[in-house]
């Protein structure tokens, strides 16, 4: 979201009401900024559930399968060593490292997927220039509507957002 209008609300309820109003006018490019995860915000914005649990599952299964295969390759195949008369390929002792690597790669996968999905590492955004926007990490609840919205009509939207009783209303990314 590079250009658009952004409004600040005093609490989460006011933000949720404003989202409902703006969406009822047909706007879809909405984003909210809050100091903590607000219950019901995703439903209000019409967002889908985050698919990150799949990343954790894939990472865990991949890590576990890779660990088992590596153990088999190293001590079961390439360098078989008789320890306590156990067969070279012995699943039971392989299980512990298999499970641990499942946890490890599941954790790494979900962490990296979260950085990617949440678009972290983008240290600056035009919206950061909005005066007072730093309250989004303190006590402010912000609603932004992007100018890339197909329904975009700056004047109408400004009036609509004014009607929702914001603490402040600003344009960003070169808008007003």
């Amino acid at each position, binding site marked *: 979201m590079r250009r658009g209008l952004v409004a600040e609300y*005093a609490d989460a309820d006011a933000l949720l009401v404003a989202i409902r109003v703006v969406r009822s006018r047909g706007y879809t490019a909405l*984003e*909210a*900024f809050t*100091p*903590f*995860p*607000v219950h019901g*915000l*995703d439903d209000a*914005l019409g*967002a889908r*559930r*985050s698919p*990150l*649990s799949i990343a*954790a599952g894939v990472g865990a299964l991949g890590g576990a399968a890779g*660990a088992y295969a*590596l*153990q088999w390759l*190293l*001590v079961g195949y*390439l*360098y078989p*060593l008789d*320890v306590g008369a*156990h067969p070279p390929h*012995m699943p039971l*002792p*392989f299980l*512990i*490292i298999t*499970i*641990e*690597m499942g*946890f*490890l790669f*599941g*954790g*790494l996968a*979900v*962490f990296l*997927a*979260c*950085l990617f*999905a*949440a*678009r*972290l*590492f983008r*240290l*600056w*955004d035009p*919206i*950061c220039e909005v005066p007072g926007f*730093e309250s*989004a*990490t*303190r*006590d402010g609840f912000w609603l932004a509507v992007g100018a890339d919205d197909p329904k975009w009509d700056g004047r109408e939207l400004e009036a609509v957002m004014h009607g929702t009783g914001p603490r402040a209303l600003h344009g960003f990314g070169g808008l007003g």
Partner: protein
Amino acid sequence: MTELARLHDDLFARMQARPSPRWKLLFAITGGLTVLLFALIAYTFATGIGVFGTNIPAGWAFPIINFVYWIGIGHAGTFISAILFLLEQHNWRNPINRLTETMTIFAVMQAALFPVLHLGRPWFAYWLFPYPDLMAVWPQVKSALPWDAAAVTTYFTVSVLFWYLGMIPDLASVRDHATSRARRIAFGIAAMGWRGSAQQWRHWRVAYLMLASIATPLVISVHSVVSSDFAIGLTPGWHTTLQPPYFVAGAIFSGFAMVIVLAIPTRYFFRLEHVITDRVLDNCAKLMLITGLIVAYGYLLDDFGAYYGGDPAERTLDFVYHPRSVIFWVTMGCNVVVPQMFWARRMRRNRTALFVGSLLVLVGMWGERFMIIVEGLLRDHIPSAWGTYTPTLVDLGILAGTFGFFSFLYLLFVRFVPFIPASELKEEA
């Protein structure tokens, strides 16, 4: 000013207060111990591990005791931050979860020093990992030691990820309200561009939940794997299926003691009595009591196993050697008798009793590790192999040094990082 703003300003003002002279004094002392630790490590590397008291038959002594002990300390951190998160105990978990996660990370760092020191040739530590080796010799994964390397590496990595992910929103808070440009840049990079957008929170919540779910079985698995270093050996006092649950309970027990030992001075120095309330400490004491009872049951079962199993070496160790061992009685006193005072609500609400009781538990749990690891080796199956063990000054110095290094890192952490999870407290408010 809104309620949220007041909460926010109050928390951050307290966390960013200028260091008091007492903080500086503690910082100097722990810094000195850290220097001692690294000097002794350098001395050990240069001379060889003959500088330790480790001998034959006590081939595993201080370094392994300290390893097991410090790994155990870490457990309560993950227990609080992951298990209590999944059990939705937010009202008493949130105020201390970052402190305890940090404790976990710093404790595991101390623990990780010891296997490397104990190798004798620490520059070959990478042999523990299955790197592409031209000699075609790889870790023997049918031994418990590579399991340990895998378990501890996983535990440390997942703990760091969980800790950091949870901290990103608060790092962004510090960035947005920083007073100096240097802080703004440093925290700006650390917060990785967090803006608190709904999209970010949506993914963050799922990732946090997933990491909590991954960390939860790790609380159980890490010390179980560590205990199998002993359980799969034949030494008296080691060779029992009791070890995994007994080690895990002992780990959480000593971890909660460390949480209390850290939380009481932290809330005092930063005037956070209204955040880290008496109720939080009360609950920690209750969990310490419960895990302490499990540990006491473990002692009982260990003796029963020795009696019922009928192995002469086990019986000699438990019924002849232990009653004459000072360490045994110190352990029993600290781990079995002392925690019983926390049945009384008055004691759980009394700072001094909590602090002293927890310190004694920390002593007792160290004693327990000594008892399990060294005393079993000193009374092996053949009496001609029996021996004695005395630690050297280097052993004692390194142990003291790890306490210094741990506290040094902790003091730096509470000085520079938002150690109360503000965004989670705001959500509760």
